[in-house]
Structures are given as C-alpha cells and as structure tokens.
C-alpha cells in the first residue's frame, strides 16, 4: 500500500466518521442580510443555529446535533432550487387615503393604483382584500356606510383596470379599526383609508 492510498483511506474514514450530511438546517438571511435564530433538539441534545452561512447537521433522533458549521452557499442554493422556484411571494399591502368626509382619493393615492395592479399581476393573485376604514368624525352608522363606499370605489377602480371581481373581497370596518387611535369625533387623515391586501 503506497502513501497516497493510505491518505485516501484516512480521508474516507474521517468523512465517514463525521456522520451523514444528509439532514441539515441552515438559516436564510432577510433582505437586509440579517438572520434569525433557532434551536434543533434531538432526544440526545440540542444546538443553537444563529449565524448566516452555517448549518447544523443531524444524524438521527438518537444522536447529538452538530454545532453550527460552515456550509457552501452554492451547494445549498442547488439543493433547494426546486422549492425556491415555487416559493410564494410575501403578500403585499397598500394603503389609499381619502379626502375628509368623502370618497375621493387623494392625488398621492391615485398614483398607487398602478403599484397595486403590478403586485396582483406578479402574483397572479386571486386573493385580494379591499378593506374600508374612516376616521372618528361623524356617527358610527355614517362611518360604516362611508367605509363601505370607499372600499366599493377602490373595488370599482380595480375592476375597471380588469381585475376580476370574483378575485376581490370587500371588507369594511367603519371607524372601528383605526390606524392611529384617536378620541371620538377627531379628524385624522391617516384613518380615512382603504387597505388593499394582495396575497
């Protein structure tokens, strides 16, 4: 047996001794590069995973998990590429504001409609909620009606832009669900709104 084959044999034994690398957990960084933290626990012990680019490897339920070890990023990407290809986009929410006591959109908000349409198209979404709200000026009853009118108006705008009506759901809260809590009868522009949730 020459020196080379001894080295190869030693390497094989070393790798085998490290156990299988088939089971592992790795953190995914958020858009800003930050990662969370989790614990992996078997029947024999537990380890904490808290660093980007590292993984915990686990042989089975009756073994101690590995400490967090570096993992090749390109390999990881390859292993998860099929799942990543169908990974859904995070739902997106848009808020449209109204002039006081009316169902007229502010000019700023009219410009957001195009972003809503883009979000719907990107997701091929059939799951769009149009949620109406008012501030606390006026009676409960009046505000319930106004919040419905506002939601209806946004529904109609989206319909006219060829969003399928069946894909949208109207919800209205009156003054009962303010973005900024106020005393009754307080005018608050940030509460006169329709939220469009695209899922």
């Amino acid at each position, binding site marked *: 047996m020459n020196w080379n084959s001894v080295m190869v044999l030693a390497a094989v034994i070393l790798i085998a001794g490290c156990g299988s690398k088939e089971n592992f957990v790795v953190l995914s960084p958020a858009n800003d590069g930050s990662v969370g933290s989790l614990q*992996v626990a078997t029947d024999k012990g537990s380890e904490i995973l808290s660093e980007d680019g590292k993984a915990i490897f686990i042989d089975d339920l009756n073994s101690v998990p590995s400490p967090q070890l570096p993992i090749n990023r390109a390999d990881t990407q390859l292993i998860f590429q099929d799942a990543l290809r169908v990974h859904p986009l995070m739902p997106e929410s848009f808020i449209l504001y109204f002039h006081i006591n009316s169902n007229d959109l502010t000019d700023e908000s009219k410009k957001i409609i195009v972003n809503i349409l883009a979000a719907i198209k990107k997701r091929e979404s059939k799951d769009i909620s149009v949620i109406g709200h008012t501030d606390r000026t006026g009676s409960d009853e009046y505000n319930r009606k106004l919040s419905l009118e506002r939601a209806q108006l946004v529904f109609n705008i989206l319909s006219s832009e060829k969003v399928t009506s069946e894909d949208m759901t109207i919800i209205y809260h009156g003054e009962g669900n303010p973005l900024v809590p106020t005393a009754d009868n307080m005018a608050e522009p940030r509460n006169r709104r329709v939220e469009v949730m695209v899922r």
Partner: protein
Amino acid sequence: MKKTAMPFCLVVLLVCTLPFPAFAEGKIIGKVKGLRGLVSILRDGKTKPAFPNDRIYQSDILLTGSDGAVGILLEDNTLISMGPISRVSMDKYTFAPATNEYAMRLNMGHGTFVYQSGLLGKLAPHAVELNTPVGRISMLKEETNFKARFAEHAQ
C-alpha cells in the same frame, strides 16, 4: 313507516345544505400558491391532486412527486415551499390576533423545505413547533427563516 319518513327527509335536507366550513375539521389555514409537477393533498384518508389556489385545511398532508414542488401561503403569511419527494403535515394551526391565540405545529417528513416566517413568527415565535424526522426545531428569535433537508430513511 310513513310517520318517520318525513323527519328523515328533513334531516337529509338540513345536512346537505350545511356549508362545508361548518365542520370542525374544515378549518382553512392557507392556500397553494406555487406548484410544479405532481403534488397531492392527503385529506380524511383520501389523496387528491393539488392545484394552484387550492385551499389547505388543518390536518392536511401535502406530498410532492419526483418532479413535484409546491409553495403554500398560510393565513398569517408564513410561506413554506418544498421540493421533490417531500412531505409535510399541517397538524395544528391557530392564528387569531384579535384574541391573542397563536399555535402552529407542522410535521416535516423527508424532503427539502424553505420556511419563511409570517406574522406568527413575528408575534409569537414560541408558538411555532416544527417536528422533523431527526428532531424538533424551535424559534429563538422573531422572523427566523430557514431551509432544511431531511433524508428519507432518517427516522
């Protein structure tokens, strides 16, 4: 005989007109969003093929074939996708911010998984329990996202 026939008909009529979500096990917890190849849903002992926008109910088991992959969106915006020959069971799910009730217990089987936290992972990371063939994963921080692979033979 004639006496009992009428109430029986009424009962049948009542049962038939009950909307599906009236059943306790019919709790909708999410939807299928992305899908490729063959993906099945195992529900009440029956397997059916899954399609985009299909609803997912508590206790459903999702399975992908050798060319399959599926991405799901849960009510709280948790996103989970899995690659070929993977399996996940949606054991328990409660997302009720109004009453402060949060629970999620998923059983990941073999396969490749991409997990992205939603509101549950933000508001109540401790309420997320993830069982795998080789151990339990629990969240120590808000908004923890991860990927994991579990081999078929691990048990």
